[in-house]
């Protein structure tokens, strides 16, 4: 099963196995990782599952949809590496992906 590393804002690291087909957001929620709120439940409608993707992984991710870009306008302190984790689905190619969580989700 692919492994995903979540790094909390305070530096705490969580390496968890996430089922293929789940989103990075769902992986965090299922494993009780604090810092991803996912208020809208994954419909790309709230920007509260914002993460910063590790530089080595940015290019390996599927491109952002217009809807994701629009929602990222609402996220707290976006950077070039900002993504909404409900829009990134885990597969073998993403085994080992590293994401950092922002200070807060809004």
């Amino acid at each position, binding site marked *: 099963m692919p492994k995903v590393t979540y790094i909390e804002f305070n530096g705490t690291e969580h390496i968890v196995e996430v089922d293929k087909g789940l989103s990075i957001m769902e992986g965090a929620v299922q494993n009780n990782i604090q810092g991803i709120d996912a208020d*809208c439940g994954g419909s790309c409608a*709230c*920007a*509260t599952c914002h993460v910063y993707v590790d530089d080595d992984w940015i290019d390996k991710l599927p491109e952002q949809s217009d809807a994701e870009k*629009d929602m990222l*306008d*609402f996220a707290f302190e*976006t950077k070039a590496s900002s993504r909404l984790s409900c829009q990134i689905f885990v597969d073998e190619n993403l085994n080992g992906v590293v994401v950092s969580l922002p200070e807060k989700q809004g």
Partner: protein
Amino acid sequence: MIKTDAVIIGAGPVGLFAVFELGILGLNAHVVDNLDKAGGQCIELYPDKPIYDIPALPICTGESLTKNLLEQIKPFKTTFHLNQRVDSITKKDKHWIVETSDKTVFETPNIIIAGGVGSFEPRKPPIKGIERFEQHNLFYSVKNKKNFDNQKVCIFGGGDSALDWVIELSKTAKKIFLVHRRDEFRAAQHTVNQMMKLKDEAKIELYTNYQPKNFAGEAKIEKVIIENNKKEIKELEVDSVLAFFGLKMELGPIVNWGLNLDNKTIIVNTENFETNEKGIFAVGDICTYPGKLKLILCGFHEAALAAQECFKRAKPDEKYIFRFTTSSSDIHKRLGIK
């Protein structure tokens, strides 16, 4: 002071259906919501997204569901108290006193909290200590556009709110700066075109790929410091700032009401969805119990059961009789069916 059988906090789908369930039992309700319209997340977050799991509706949208629920509760002529949030509740004998941010006060035996993930509040720029400016010249909405006459106004955002106000205020303000984090805008295309025309005519200054870095000033914001993707910094002298970063949801004052909580949700029993306080119920996404699913259809069930207990509390001297809408003449009368 408004006396009512129930105060419903939250005008989302479950709050609206609670009005119906109370209404057919002959109970009136007042609904409070912090948004400017009914519908909750369905209207604010995903009005156009399809919903496939409402019983007997193979497909609907957040908007159409809200519209139909409002139609369904029309016979009860419910009063909505919008743009306000319930700030405090206090006990008075067997009743509750409910007060909103607009100082509307209710006395009621029943409070139904149908607050979803919380009330919608404006998102703020990611700058520490900006609360001190909020009483002076930092705003998240326009209450009176005359306040910006002849001012240098910095507007943040790329959606319809931001661009509509750029266009409107450009007529009366001394100067408008528009700052947005990327080159593309979410606003409607014709609004974007209008804004671009103003920019080409040098009626506004546009800064794309810039984000707020700091607001300088003591009591008031005097300078807005923005930074772009290349770490270049610009300083803009301003009289006021309008930030349109959308809305977020916050549980807010609910956490202070002495209710048993579990990770941002309110613990209820599954018999009548009452909380640990008599007469306070929680339904929909905001409640939790073993097996809880955050589905609109589950919220409808919860509202129906909570309404039965509300009846007993609102009309302790009347006998409760369970009736079907198909056959009850009392219900038909309440629904205005002749």
